[in-house]
């Protein structure tokens, strides 16, 4: 038998989600939910394009000021609007992949976010990215935790056994 951790403290995993594409989000959430299933405490730190995954699917695009509103209008985000990083083909490739995911009984990104939340995975938007893009906490879905900065990430990462940048 392998040696078991004697401490009651859970092992940690920290994932930086920088990318906002469907396939990369899928990879991040598969690893996060599996880590949580294996008894780990998982933090997902969303920055830059990764924030798109957590944006609300409905409602007006966020943003303070006309330019930032425009940015968030063009860069709308929302788990249901994510594109594949390759093979998007004006939506045809992405639509096909979503269909294949469904046929394989794989949860959608939307369902993965809900599942992750239920399993205790923390999803944290990066405060700097939010500031730069003019996004407040109201821009994000309800499963999302409060904003945090790089120091929070470093502090979590230095205690983590697994750290990933996706």
């Amino acid at each position, binding site marked *: 038998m392998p040696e078991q951790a004697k401490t009651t403290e859970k092992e940690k995993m920290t994932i930086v989600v920088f990318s906002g594409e469907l396939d990369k989000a899928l990879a991040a959430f598969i690893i996060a939910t599996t880590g949580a299933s294996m008894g780990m405490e998982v933090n997902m730190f969303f920055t830059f394009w990764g924030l798109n995954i957590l944006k609300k699917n409905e409602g007006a695009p966020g943003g303070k000021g006309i330019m930032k509103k425009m940015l968030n209008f063009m860069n709308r985000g929302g788990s249901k609007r994510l594109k594949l990083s390759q093979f998007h083909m004006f939506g045809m490739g992405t639509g096909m992949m979503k269909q294949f995911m469904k046929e394989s009984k794989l949860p959608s990104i939307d369902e993965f976010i809900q*599942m992750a939340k239920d*399993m205790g995975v923390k999803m944290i938007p990066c405060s700097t990215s939010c500031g730069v893009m003019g996004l407040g906490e109201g821009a994000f879905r309800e499963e999302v935790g409060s904003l945090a900065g790089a120091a929070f990430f470093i502090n979590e990462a230095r205690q983590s056994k697994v750290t990933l940048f996706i």
Partner: protein
Amino acid sequence: MKADHTLDCVGLYCPMPIVKTSQKMKELKSGEVLEVVADDKGIKQDMPAWAQTTGNEFLGMEESGGEIKVYVKKK
């Protein structure tokens, strides 16, 4: 192999069998055995790994006609 509970994961791919196993294990009492039936070959590597990390005991597996039965005992 005899099991106290069975979990059907046929047709599911990674990570769903592991996610469902960890949820199901919460219902088991210590010492009880869970049988997981799956057809995703990844489970042959994933379940022993899951057991090693979580401290539950991996008892073995049986494979027949593309169907894989794995057994884990709750610690």
